[in-house]
């Protein structure tokens, strides 16, 4: 069974840069907890004979050859940007 400790909504909200009120945090904790419990059902299935896989379909190696093509012009690329200067997207100042 999923335990409450498996899901810390406040922490996940912080990772997702979401500001939740205390009431929202509690509400989502309960709702998302229910979702986890529902998914828990999968544990009832016997998968001892099934190989672990990252993907559901047995398809491999979908590649494209290394041939370049143009798509957007700078104007097109920037057409949704709230702010732009000299061909650059302008965002609030970030530091790293």
């Amino acid at each position, binding site marked *: 069974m999923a335990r409450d400790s498996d899901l810390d909504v406040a922490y996940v909200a912080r990772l997702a840069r979401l500001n939740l009120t205390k009431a929202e945090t509690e509400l989502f904790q309960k709702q998302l907890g229910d979702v986890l419990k529902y998914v828990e059902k999968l544990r009832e299935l016997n998968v001892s004979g099934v190989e672990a896989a990252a*993907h559901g*379909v047995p398809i491999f*190696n979908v590649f*494209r050859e*290394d041939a*370049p093509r143009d798509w957007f012009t700078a104007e097109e*690329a920037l057409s949704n940007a709230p702010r732009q200067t000299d061909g*650059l997207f302008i965002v609030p100042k970030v530091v790293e």
Partner: protein
Amino acid sequence: MKYVAAVGLEVHVQLKTRSKMFCACPVEFGAEPNTHTCPVCLGLPGALPVMNHEALRMTVLTGLMLGCDIAPICKFDRKNYFYPDMPKNYQISQYDMPLCTNGSVSLHDLAYPKDAQKNIVTPDKEVHLVRIHLEEDVAKSFHFENSTGIDFNRAGTPLMEIVTQPEINSPEEAFAFLTSLKQILIYGGVSDAEMEKGQLRCDCNISVRPEKQAGLGVKIEIKNMNSISGVRRALAYEIQRQISALETGEKLEQETRGWDDAAGETFLMRTKEFAHDYRYFPDPDLVPVTTEVLLADVRSRVPELPKAKRARFVQQYQVSAYDAGVLANDLVLARYFEAAAKGAKKPKNVANWILNDLQNALSGAGKTISDCPIPPEALDELVNLIDSGKISGKQGKEVFAEMFATGKRAAAIVKEKGIKQLSDLSAIEALCDEVISANPKAAADFKAGNVAPLNFLKGQVMKLSKGKANPQLAGEILERKLKS
């Protein structure tokens, strides 16, 4: 107390593909901002990534060159974080199933900084790798006074990350590691690996501990180093900073630091509480990759590596181990040497001309071997003219200067200027007779068993011939005459 440092590197290498990792936008350094973008690399909703076959091949090729184990199957994962250089809010990377694991890079003497080549602590040290994985690069940020500008041309270009074990013990070893790795990447044609263009970037994990302590000390990371000499300086600073801290009883904490090259010091960027939690999970948009076919594709592309080339140069051309090292350090120089040495009677002399006169002339003219005005076969002709005695070594220098300045061939210059070495026996004999009778004391000394005057007499013959006499012949004739 004595302290030891353990350093592990995470090296990011831009692959030399023509298009990006998951879309077909061109990869071009220095293009106008945001001119190489599409819905995939701008992270527009609904756009789907498709893997670049060549980028996968290049990563497997790198794995083979570095002696890695190539995973039979690998996959791509999403590394989640929020930063404007990554518009999807995740970077496609490889988490628990990378393309390559293990492998190593050996540190050749000449890969160390020049001033450190005399005292190498562990000659031929092997630095082992943890893994190599493939991911997409992020956009380039420009930090302004009150805002940040983003150029997505680099976003989504293929980036290979090479992670070492914490086996590097000094700034000089880190320098040698990066230099050796860079050479191999260039040999394999997988990257130009120019740090000033950001094609090779490096994060360093550093820990210091008392010599007797088992296990590593506290790990402190320095991010985003962009020159090999900068890495050396930053490590020297940071290792000393950590030792001083431990000596004064300060407790070090896990943290991330930056390097200010101008100030020559590292600075705190973030502490452990603000460490990232990337919440990796498999990217459902990308299917797994089996490497069998990739391996078959690239096996024939594994080049002769620097180490093998050095050994072959010594064996095949009888050049010294040092000269072989200098030549093989630079693939273009090595190719030039081989092209010139192919037809040479004495390839060792060709190497000498390249490493002395040619290198000097190039650096004097601010040129590199790639834009050398003397083609390799022309240098070979010059060296053969000297080795066959047609012109003297001194005349050779004159001809060389003319070749370098005008691009003319040696034979043409020799003909034009009437340069030739006097190899006519009777003419040299006459000069020798003249010198012997003009210097009776030196001649008598030699006859009395003192060998030194022979060189003096030879010098006189050369002078008399205005440098045109074949010095070897002059020496032989003088000796014969004095001994008879």
